């Protein structure tokens, strides 16, 4: 009706619309109630005769509202139906319904089946028989059947995950139409050219001839599909195609992992083009988890892409030549490399103690091997490594003292000069060198270099022909910093500085991470080439074919493979076909993904120009009875009319005090209700958008980090905490007066919550009456100690300790605490320990008491020249000092320097000695074994002849 998909079931009722003008007249002369006003001087004019008794007219808008209301009710009574069912084809013979059931038809499958059902039903009403042909059936004879059986058959039909060849069905259809003159053909097309749409249409028209008609129904929408996916270094790129502008203009690409959990999503918009790349910008770990990409709102097999291990991240093995203990991770060269690689690659490090770490690393089948300061590689390791590189692996080496001094092996891109050079050392005039910008040909080009990076020492390449082409990065004086060379299918790259911070601060910069990211991307390129060339897929030698595990149906849903699915050959490259439906093939740990479309597939709109084809749109929607909505609308208008009448009558104007709050309350209740409803809809979205906040730097952490300061553990016992605070304050003041260190105010910390890494020394008085910290706290303390911090545990029980007696409560408490901490071997401070020499020369550490023993990490057994050395020190600072002398109480003094706690025994210069002990401990924690070295100064001066 009027070009709209609208029909009336009782059109005669519309005649009542003629009565509307009469209604208008009636409504116009019935006025609303007057407003009432109290008026004290009314007596003055009561006797006046009203001059104009003509009542006020109904306002026009109220009139319009009421007329609309009446019109709506009349319209509703006429029974309007939106999208009325179409009329059938006007033929006389049987009806052949051809149903496209490739994956593009999955888009509106229900509507297609409903359209087929409608056509069959209307044909049956006219006494005609029907037949159904699905294009995937191939050359099967067309047999008419009764409508109920056809409906069942239609219900059993499902779209298939490939595009069937339509033309194979042409022959039986032609035969059928020839046998039944006057037969009509209805082709419910999927609107995609795949499967020779035009040729098929021409064939249908030819088969129909003059007597029969061919009608084609197409959906309003054409599909969007994913053809290929690439895990690029920065993001996951998916190529999306669509068939003409009838496909979705924009949408959401969603990524799922193997369990079907959503990982991420990306919006895409075709913007007029038919082929775009959607970019899924996710961290590499997440990208590697992706097993399935799906275009939301497109429920077809073509809109699903399956990903297997070919799209996974690269594996990197790190082998360190340094046999240093890993207890101090910041000194390990592989630490920085592993941390930098971890975000985008799977890092493997051979376990410590492996006999040949390089072979162990190669057994991990990495695509990139990082060797940090490994000297000469020889023997089997060298052979294996060479083969690895020849086959496409990438070797990344870092220089170091071993490489600088070692004899050359051939696993470096350039020949190296022995020794290297030192820039900006104490015996050199040169200053540390900065990086030069990357050359355009370098794989690193495009990365911004950091001004802060400087190199103090490096190994040098022998000048030789082709050195410039092998240079990927250079210093600002042109010295190569990173060189690389191709070997076979693989690559060797050498960074001319160490992977730790001893030679340069490159490993601390973001540049390092970016360069390693490029290196890993390079490794991916070479190994992929290698795998396709040699086909060393695991299990390839054992099985010739791979059986389907889970396959997609036409709607793009993973399920059990159909019985017709056949295993794929190992080197099956192409897209799916009827025998090999898309899906995952092979065992779960080595699945191969087969996708619906070839990587370069295109979707086209069929061209039916000049064909005698009755083209109609697939009915877009079910018929909608508009009566309920019209009546609901009329009811709302009725309510509005009632409110307007009340308002005109002056309700709410009089009795201001009582009515207004009530009205306001009603209005606010309504608004609140609306908001509640809206909020209920939006609540999940809100909950999703609230991402977990990262732990922010708080003010306390900033304070702790920006100034060096001492710290004490807040025990919860206020007396002890006060003594600790005052003691450390006095000690800080003494340090500021006597030494080069001027610490800021000490800070109380809670080891369970506060970050401890900022403090060189933490003083921990033991309060036995407080609960033990949790195990997690012990782990944090352990970590703090491992990373170079020093904890002074003070049991304050020197006077209650009894040799051979049971442990005091404080000692027992400390033992339980340290049960979860990795404590080194301890010894009482020996006379020659460096802690007794760091600032003052002391005999022992005293506090409020002097009798207690102070324990410190045991030093290695004294070396042969022990007799000559006045001080000994290990390689590092003792992470733990345990005393029982109550140091803080001895240090503590008030603002004017008056001591606060009595000492025991309090003779001589005990308080001064206590402060000196504190100064020594702090200087020991900050300077380490430096004082142990300085004691050689006399020998040095002797040697220099001074």
């Amino acid at each position: 009706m009027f070009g709209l998909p609208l029909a009336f079931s009782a059109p005669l009722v519309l005649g009542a619309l003629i009565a509307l003008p009469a209604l208008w007249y009636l409504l116009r002369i019935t006025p609303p109630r007057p407003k009432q006003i109290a008026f004290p001087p009314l007596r003055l004019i009561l006797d006046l005769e009203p001059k104009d008794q003509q009542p006020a007219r109904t306002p026009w808008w109220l009139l319009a509202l009421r007329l609309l209301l009446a019109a709506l009710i009349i319209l509703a009574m006429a029974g309007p139906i939106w999208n009325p069912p179409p009329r059938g084809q006007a033929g006389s013979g049987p009806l052949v319904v051809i149903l496209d059931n490739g994956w593009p038809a999955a888009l509106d499958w229900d509507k297609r089946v409903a359209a087929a059902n409608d056509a069959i039903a209307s044909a049956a009403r006219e006494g005609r028989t029907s037949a159904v042909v699905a294009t995937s059936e191939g050359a099967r004879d067309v047999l008419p059947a009764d409508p109920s059986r056809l409906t069942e058959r239609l219900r059993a039909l499902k779209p298939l995950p490939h595009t069937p060849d339509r033309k194979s069905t042409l022959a039986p259809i032609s035969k059928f139409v020839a046998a039944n003159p006057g037969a009509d053909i209805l082709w419910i097309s999927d609107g995609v050219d795949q499967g020779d749409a035009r040729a098929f249409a021409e064939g249908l028209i030819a088969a129909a001839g003059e007597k029969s008609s061919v009608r084609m129904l197409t959906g309003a929408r054409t599909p969007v599909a994913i053809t290929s996916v690439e895990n690029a270094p920065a993001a996951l790129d998916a190529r999306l195609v669509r068939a003409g502008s009838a496909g979705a203009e924009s949408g959401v690409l969603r990524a799922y992992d193997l369990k079907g959990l959503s990982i991420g999503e990306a919006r895409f918009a075709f913007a007029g083009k038919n082929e775009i790349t959607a970019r899924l910008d996710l961290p590499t770990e997440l990208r590697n988890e992706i097993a399935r990409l799906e275009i939301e709102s497109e429920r077809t097999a073509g809109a699903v892409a399956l990903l297997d291990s070919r799209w996974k991240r690269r594996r990197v093995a790190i082998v360190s030549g340094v046999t240093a203990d890993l207890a101090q991770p910041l000194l390990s060269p592989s630490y920085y490399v592993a941390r930098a690689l971890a975000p985008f690659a799977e890092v493997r490090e051979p376990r410590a103690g492996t006999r040949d770490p390089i072979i162990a690393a190669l057994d991990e089948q990495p695509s990139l091997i990082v060797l940090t300061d490994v000297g000469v590689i020889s023997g089997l390791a060298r052979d294996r490594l060479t083969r690895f590189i020849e086959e496409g692996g990438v070797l990344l080496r870092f220089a170091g003292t071993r490489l600088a001094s070692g004899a050359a092996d051939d696993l470096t891109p350039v020949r190296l000069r022995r020794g290297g050079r030192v820039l900006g050392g104490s015996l050199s005039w040169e200053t540390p060198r900065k990086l030069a910008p990357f050359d355009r040909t370098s794989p690193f080009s495009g990365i911004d270099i950091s001004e802060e990076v400087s190199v103090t020492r490096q190994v040098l390449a022998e000048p030789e022909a082709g050195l410039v082409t092998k240079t990927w990065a250079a210093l600002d004086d042109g010295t190569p910093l990173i060189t690389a060379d191709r070997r076979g299918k693989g690559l060797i790259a050498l960074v001319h500085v160490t992977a730790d911070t001893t030679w340069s601060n490159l490993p601390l910069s973001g540049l390092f991470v970016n360069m390693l990211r490029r290196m890993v991307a390079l490794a991916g390129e070479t190994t992929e080439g290698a795998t396709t060339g040699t086909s060393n897929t695991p299990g390839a030698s054992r099985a010739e074919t791979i059986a389907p595990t889970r396959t997609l149906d036409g709607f793009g849903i993973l399920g059990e493979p159909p019985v017709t699915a056949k295993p794929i050959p190992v080197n099956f490259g192409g897209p799916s076909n009827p025998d090999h439906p898309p899906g995952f093939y092979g065992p779960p740990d080595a699945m191969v993904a087969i996708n619906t479309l070839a990587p370069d597939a295109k979707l086209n709109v069929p061209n039916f120009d000049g064909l005698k084809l009755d083209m109609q749109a697939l009915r877009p929607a079910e018929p909608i009875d508009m009566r309920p909505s019209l009546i609901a609308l009329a009811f709302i208008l009725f309510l509005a009319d009632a409110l307007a009448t009340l308002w005109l009558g002056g309700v709410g104007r009089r009795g201001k005090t009582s009515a207004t709050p009530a009205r306001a309350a009603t209005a606010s209740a309504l608004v609140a209700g609306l908001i509640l409803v809206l909020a209920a809809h939006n609540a999940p979205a809100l909950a999703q958008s609230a991402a977990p906040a990262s732990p922010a730097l708080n003010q306390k952490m900033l304070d702790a980090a920006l100034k060096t300061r001492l710290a004490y553990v807040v025990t919860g016992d206020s007396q002890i905490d006060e003594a600790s605070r005052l003691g450390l304050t006095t000690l800080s003041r003494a340090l500021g007066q006597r030494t080069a260190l001027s610490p800021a105010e000490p800070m109380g910390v809670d080891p369970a919550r506060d970050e401890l890494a900022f403090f060189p020394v933490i003083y921990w008085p033991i309060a036995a009456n407080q609960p033990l910290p949790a195990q997690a706290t012990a782990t944090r303390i352990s970590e703090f100690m491992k990373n170079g911090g020093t904890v002074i545990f003070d049991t304050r029980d020197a006077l209650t300790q009894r040799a051979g007696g049971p442990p005091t409560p404080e000692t027992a408490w400390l033992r339980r605490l340290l049960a979860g901490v990795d404590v080194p071997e301890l010894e009482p401070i020996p006379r020659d320990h460096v802690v007794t020499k760091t600032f003052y020369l002391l005999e022992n550490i005293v506090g409020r008491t002097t009798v207690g023993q102070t324990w410190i990490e045991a030093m290695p057994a004294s070396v042969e020249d022990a007799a000559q050395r006045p001080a000994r020190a290990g390689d590092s600072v003792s992470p733990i000092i345990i005393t029982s002398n109550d140091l803080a109480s001895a240090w503590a003094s008030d603002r004017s320097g008056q001591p606060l706690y009595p000492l025991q025994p309090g003779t001589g210069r005990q308080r001064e000695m206590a402060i000196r002990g504190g100064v020594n401990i702090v200087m020991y924690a900050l300077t380490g074994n430096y004082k142990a070295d300085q004691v050689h100064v006399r020998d040095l001066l002797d040697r220099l002849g001074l």
Partner: protein
Amino acid sequence: MAEARLLAADESAIAGTHRQGALELARRLPSLVVAAKEVAATVMHGVHGRRRAGVGETFWQFRPFMWGESTTKIDWRRSARDDRIYVREREWEAAHTVWIWMDRSPSMAYVSTLALQSKVDRALTLGLAAADLLVRGGERVGAPGLTRPIAARNIVDRLAESLIEEAGRRDHTPAELPPPDALAPRTQIVILSDMLNAPDDIRATIHSIASRGAIGHVVMISDPIEDTFPFMGHTEFLDVDSAARLRLGEAQSFKADYIRRLAAHRDAVREACASRGWSFALHRTDRPASEALLALRMRLEGPQGGTA
């Protein structure tokens, strides 16, 4: 269009705000001193001496003791100075009386959005403020039908209490005009009301009050909406004192008639006042109360006692 409404019963009741407002208003004006009308014995007003011996506080003269007088009147201190016996006489002092009528009828409990205060609030504020001023000036103030003339300093509280007490009475219907009893000569009466009664009633009341020579000051309080009649369209007017109502199709067409009627009514009231030598003033509730109080004070102080 301006909106108007009647006050609820609890709103129009006298409350602390009236007392406070009245006191604040009164404190802003200097003490009201009513000028002496006559220098001689016919002084109208109290603390001004009557220039002759009588009941009072101030010393007037010593006179010789006369035979037959009570001996308690002898001023022994003076008598001890010579042989004669003296009596101390004081000057005769008499306070002047002012009656104040505050209309609290339903028609007064009316306020529009244009006004600062309802009419009854304004009448109470003005009346109590005037009472306070007068008492501070030494006069006696009373409310007709409520209290006898009082000269207490807490006159505002006293009047307010009696107003509350009257309003609390069960069978009480507030009158619009003061009771028509003749007042003593040379007393004054202040009538604060909207004066919307029939002009004949008003004239009769004024005449009977003034029949013995009392002087009056009428302040006619009106709401601005009553002066301007800003109504439009289909409106139904309700009277407040009676059940009368008037429905008008086009209220604006009545404006001219109404204003003419109102002017005639006011002229009638003014004429009734003038005929007895009373003063008449108009006061609108959109004007500040102090303005009306100042005008009232001028009249009360006036040389003629207010035939201005």
